[in-house]
């Protein structure tokens, strides 16, 4: 059998596998641990945690759409203190590698969250979810505003110091993704997570009103995969040295290889786990087999392959 180096890195963080959970799609980790050991994954990306406990949006919170789904959870969660007290120790006990996702409503809130995480051990990286409404600027989503995006990452970078890698998670709902990506990298992001959900809506045909309690929701699942692959390709093209955690509709080893070839060093799996709680393991196994079948000896050689191959022409 061929031997394959399946490991990957994001900034200075090393992971034995490139397959991660996606933020908000694995809850505390305990729920999936019934189906496989969390240690088997590259990492668990936790759901975005905020300073205070939040109840989130009213129900209905989901609608299935063709090859996708909309969600409007509204970042329900226990708040950073309870999260550090309960969820981190559990994940550590499971020997899972941990990427903590943080979310805030102000630039200051992100820094506060980062400060609380500084002293917590067992964390591999911090993912900064900037797809949140900025209460200081008419609720405009941070990730849609180049300046606000920069300021959030800058604040987190200053607070964290140089140790923990920062992964800035961007929204695809922008005119110029590359310029936003460049901005957050300038501000200190070590890596980028692409893509968050795409803004969508479903009208309930019985009531003829918006179906979701929150009216609009985030579209995820295979339907958005072509958008995710394009986003990863564009950003990798512009900044080939910046590692990307790719995601958006990945549900097979083939899908994972597609986004890796487009430029992703790691792959988060979100919605696929809803349809199949063992999807992460299935995808991980399929990806390994596929890389070996294609003659790769190292995952790293496949990262961004679609760009290199086209240069050869």
């Amino acid at each position, binding site marked *: 059998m061929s031997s394959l180096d399946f490991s990957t890195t994001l900034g200075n963080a090393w992971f034995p596998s490139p397959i991660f959970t996606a933020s908000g799609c694995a809850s505390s980790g305990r729920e*999936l641990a*019934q189906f496989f050991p969390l240690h088997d994954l590259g990492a668990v990306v936790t759901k975005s945690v905020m300073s205070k406990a939040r109840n989130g*949006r009213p*129900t209905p919170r989901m609608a299935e759409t063709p090859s996708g*789904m909309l969600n409007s959870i509204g970042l329900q969660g226990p708040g950073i203190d309870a999260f550090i007290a309960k969820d981190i120790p559990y994940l550590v006990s499971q020997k899972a590698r941990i990427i903590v996702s943080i979310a805030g409503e102000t630039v200051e809130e992100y820094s506060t969250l980062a400060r609380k995480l500084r002293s917590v051990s067992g964390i591999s990286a911090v993912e900064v979810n900037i797809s949140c409404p900025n209460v200081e600027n008419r609720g405009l989503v941070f990730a849609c505003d180049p300046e606000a995006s920069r300021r959030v990452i800058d604040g987190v970078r200053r607070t964290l110091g140089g140790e923990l890698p920062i992964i800035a998670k961007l929204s695809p709902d922008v005119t110029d993704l590359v310029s936003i990506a460049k901005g957050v990298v300038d501000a200190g992001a070590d890596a980028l997570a692409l893509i968050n959900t795409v803004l969508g809506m479903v009208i309930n045909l019985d009531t003829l009103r918006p179906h979701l309690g929150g009216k609009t929701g985030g579209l995820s699942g295979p339907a958005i995969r072509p958008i995710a692959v394009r986003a990863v390709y564009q950003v990798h093209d512009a900044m080939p040295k910046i590692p990307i955690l790719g995601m958006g509709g990945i549900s097979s080893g083939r899908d994972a290889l597609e986004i890796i070839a487009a430029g992703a060093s790691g792959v988060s799996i979100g*919605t696929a786990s*809803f349809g199949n709680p063992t999807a992460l393991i299935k995808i991980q196994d399929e990806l390994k087999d596929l890389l070996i079948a294609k003659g790769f000896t190292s995952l790293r050689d496949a990262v961004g392959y679609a760009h290199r191959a086209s240069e050869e022409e």
Partner: protein
Amino acid sequence: MATINKNAAQINSMVVSNKRVGQYHQLIINVGDNADACKPGNFVAINVGGESSRMILRRAFAISRVSTNPTFGGTIELIVAPHGQGSKWLCAQNEGASLDLIAPLGTAFGIPTQPVPVLLVGGGYGSAPLFGLAEVLNSRGCRVDMLLGASTASKIYAPMEGKRAVNSLRIYTEDGSMGQIGRVTDPIPELIADLNIAVIYSCGPMAMLSAINSITHNTQVVHQCAVEESMACGVGICMTCVLPVANENGDISMLRSCIDGPVMDGSTVQWDKVGKTL
């Protein structure tokens, strides 16, 4: 060690039979040893549409009855209403079809430690889990009375053999096409008084559960209800299926109906806040 859904397993199961019953389909599915862990109130989550389906989420169905069949091993029964594309696909699966299924999921109905009089109330296919429950309660010495309701006769699911464990069964339809005309909740106050009901077990539309709760509210009657919220994952990872529920201190939080439910203590559910911003 897993603490959530600890008996759940994802298996390839096989359809043993598929029979139309009124507007529903009764599916018997071979789930092997998994049947042993299934309790009344638990549900299953099934992949629908096959490999190239555009339906990416599982569908949830209550386990109606469990049995160990000498030929097939452990089987479960589901009562499925052909509602949208996913449930219609399931209703079209024939004997021998294989289903990717996770079972058992969620909480089960709590069984009283003492033999007390209980009332079971089912709306539509909500009656499905009540017959298996009735058998358990009956075997514990409880007196079991049952009310079933639906808009019309063909939506009443009440199998002959299901009535064995039941002391009385009354049926209500809104159009009067079967049983008495009216709502299944109408006779409840009187029955509570007459039969000295200690526990009501209910399963059906949220409006029915809420109406029962208004009746049991501020009484000694315990209300164990199986709620039904839209579920994307069924296993606790998506946070879509939440309901506002109060804890002992009266603090309200959004609990997941797939792991903290579907069976919940009706008195803790904040019925007036369902679908509202907390």
